[in-house]
């Protein structure tokens, strides 16, 4: 299983991105869109990176890689 600390960080990142995305959809302004593009999307990318890293580590532990 993903390390609980990594999992918590990844969930926090996805939650941040989702909040900013929902705000941009609810009220589309230059600021809300800019925050989603500048902060929300990087949060998503980081969370995805953490997930891929953990999956690779898991595969290594099981001798697949």
């Amino acid at each position, binding site marked *: *299983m*993903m390390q609980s600390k990594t*999992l918590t960080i*990844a*969930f926090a990142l*996805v939650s941040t*991105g*989702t909040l900013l*995305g929902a705000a*941009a*959809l609810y009220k*589309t*302004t*230059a600021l809300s*869109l*800019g925050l*989603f593009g500048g902060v*929300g*999307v990087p949060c*998503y990318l980081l*969370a*995805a990176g*953490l*997930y891929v890293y*953990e*999956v690779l580590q*898991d595969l290594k532990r099981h001798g697949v890689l």
Partner: protein
Amino acid sequence: MTSRAKWLLFFAFILFPFALTTVTYEVGAMRTRQVDFCASCHVMTPFVEGVRDPKSDMLAALHFQNRWIPHQQCYTCHVDYGMFGELDAKVRSVRHAAAFYLKKDLGRPKLYKPYPSRNCLHCHQGARSFEEQPAHEDVKDALKSGSASCLDCHGPAHPGGEG
């Protein structure tokens, strides 16, 4: 990690963010074409008030109030046509926003390059009102090549503009 957990986390960390980003991009791109979106930045207020001013006879106001451009009036005039026209417009708008927030450049926003007459010609070229206007005869080629601007005679488009 169990296979089920991997799929659940794959949905939570990859698929869901990808789907929400795609939806936000599509909806955001559509909404950024509306005049109300342009008006959501304070620095744009004089321009939007100008086009909505019933007493104004400036070029942008006439196009807006007579619905010569039915929808998305700011976008229609300020996005260059061609394959990367919209992308270029988005990059320019981000530059304006960055200048506003980072350089504290709080004055009237200025175009980064002279207004291209081909944006006007996108609608007017081929129209009788443009092609058969005697005053256009001498400048038609210059307008089409970009060496003369429609705003030389018809500008400025907005109050306080330079023509």
